[in-house]
């Protein structure tokens, strides 16, 4: 375990001192600046949903819809930027580092390959979780300052985002055992995109009541559970909305009908365990 923590510490140092971290920080600052601007504008000039002269959504409901939409946008950006960070921290962790000659000096030290992999996982998860939680908290504060509104749930969506990024880190590490750096990077962003498409499908399926579409979306969420956790986070942010406000949230780009479940949480844990086994066995068998 000591060796695992040494490697995790090394990954933390690497994360902070590599240029990619500075790039992600710059992008984050840019995003937050734009998010502040968008929030101030959105709450400063709220739109109206009217038929003739009749307002369909009251001012408080409109504020809530605006808040939930902004919060969902923030959750999306938090996970996306954290995914960029996670992929860049792990995409070449095994095969890529071995091809560049970075891995061999470490592997010949008296530590197991399993410990080395676990250390990389813990280090990358620590960085990405801190990042996603920090960004999510910033989004909550910005929306609250701009519109005076807190989401319906605060901790639950945050934990779901943490689960999502943890699974993405694990997937990227697994990919790094078998794929070259470039191939793994491409594969990860394609899988991430596939997950987003599943979310959109689920949203469309729920709005139209199309069971087949919902089934397809659900199957993809099972295969890529980070998407299931992400959509559960979106759902929890506005789960107390009712009536037309609920409909408006659901048909928006960040709508979600997935409330999550303990069974899905268990599936996520099992999925991580399977990834851990596959990655360890693959790494143990690899000649370097």
């Amino acid at each position, binding site marked *: 375990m000591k*060796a695992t923590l*040494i490697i995790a510490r*090394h990954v933390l*140092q*690497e994360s902070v*001192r*590599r240029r990619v971290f500075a790039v992600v920080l710059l992008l984050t600052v840019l995003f937050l600046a734009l998010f502040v601007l968008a929030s101030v504008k959105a709450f400063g000039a709220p739109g109206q949903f009217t038929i003739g002269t009749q307002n369909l959504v009251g001012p408080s409901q409109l504020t809530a819809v605006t808040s939930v939409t902004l919060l969902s946008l923030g959750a999306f950006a938090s996970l996306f930027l954290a995914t960029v960070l996670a992929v860049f921290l792990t995409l070449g962790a095994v095969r890529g580092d071995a091809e*560049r*000659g*970075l891995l*061999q*000096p*470490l*592997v*010949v*030290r*008296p*530590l*197991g390959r399993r410990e080395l992999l676990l250390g990389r996982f813990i280090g990358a998860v620590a960085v990405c979780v801190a990042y996603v939680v920090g960004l999510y908290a910033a989004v909550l504060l910005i929306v609250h300052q701009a519109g005076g509104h807190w989401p319906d749930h605060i901790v639950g969506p945050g934990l779901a985002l943490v689960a999502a990024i943890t699974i993405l880190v694990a997937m990227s590490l697994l990919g790094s055992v078998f794929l070259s750096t470039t191939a793994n990077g491409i594969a990860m962003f394609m899988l991430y995109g596939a997950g987003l498409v599943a979310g959109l499908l689920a949203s469309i399926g729920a709005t139209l009541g199309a069971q087949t579409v919902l089934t397809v979306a659900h199957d993809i969420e099972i295969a890529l559970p980070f998407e299931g956790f992400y959509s559960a986070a979106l759902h929890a942010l506005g789960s107390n909305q009712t009536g037309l406000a609920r409909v408006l949230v659901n048909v928006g780009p960040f709508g979600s009908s997935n409330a999550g479940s303990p069974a899905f949480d268990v599936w996520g844990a099992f999925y991580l365990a399977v990834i851990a086994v596959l990655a360890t066995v693959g790494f143990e*068998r690899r*000649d*370097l």
Partner: protein
Amino acid sequence: MDANTETAPTALAEPAPAAEPEPPPALLATGVGKRYGSVVALDGVSLSVARGELVGLVGANGAGKSTLVKISCGLVRPTTGTVTVCGAPAATREARRKLGYLAELFRFPGWSTASEILALHQRLAGSPGGQAEREELLELVGLSDVARRRVEGMSKGMQQRLGIAQALVGEPKLLLLDEPTSALDPAGRRAIRALLLELRDRGIAVLINSHLLGELERVCDRVAILAHGKLVADGRPEELTQSGGVEIQTGAGPRRFPNASREDIPRIVAGLVAQGVDIYEVAVVRSTLEDAYLEVVGPE
């Protein structure tokens, strides 16, 4: 029994001191084979490196040198055969605690400093050496002045020397060096030669894999030659090389006596002087390790 005969009183005799068990060799490869699909990289190679011995491993590209070294440090799994490091099976933690390794193609993270890299390897190797060990190793490879410089700001030769320092972290009993002088200038090579000899004096066994036969000839106790995955020669450099006779520089130009040895020189010189030949220089000619290598391996 004669009373005057001196016999040692059996009951009081001190037991003969038990012979110290011979320590296992630093490296022992037995019948090691490695296949990559249909390609045979190693074919039943057996080789040992004694404690404190400096052994050179030579061979053409693809002869299996790096594969043997990688199997010895647990980076590659052998298809057949076994390797032990100081008696412990290769790739086990016990074996890894005993060895230091410098890969042919290696890199350190560009963001870290020389001192940080050594500190990381000290922690992983469980070395209690601390700052003193880091300073000593950097001094040993001539990098004391750049201890706090990032790797990305170092020349290739400096990184190579840092790699050697890294391999020496934790006082290994066996050092596996894969082309350690490939990126070094002549001064750097000379420094590494001196370092290798010092390591041998400290009792550290070294297996060095290199194409620079002249370098190996100068420092190695033994040289092993691999060809097509097989060990084709193994011996002391002077055993592998052959006498090429005696060459004498005379006033009329060089004269070669191909079958002569060192002991024949006085007789030959006396004969030439008696004939009135002016003699300027006398040398015993030996074939080089390169000649021996080419003879065994062929020009390929």
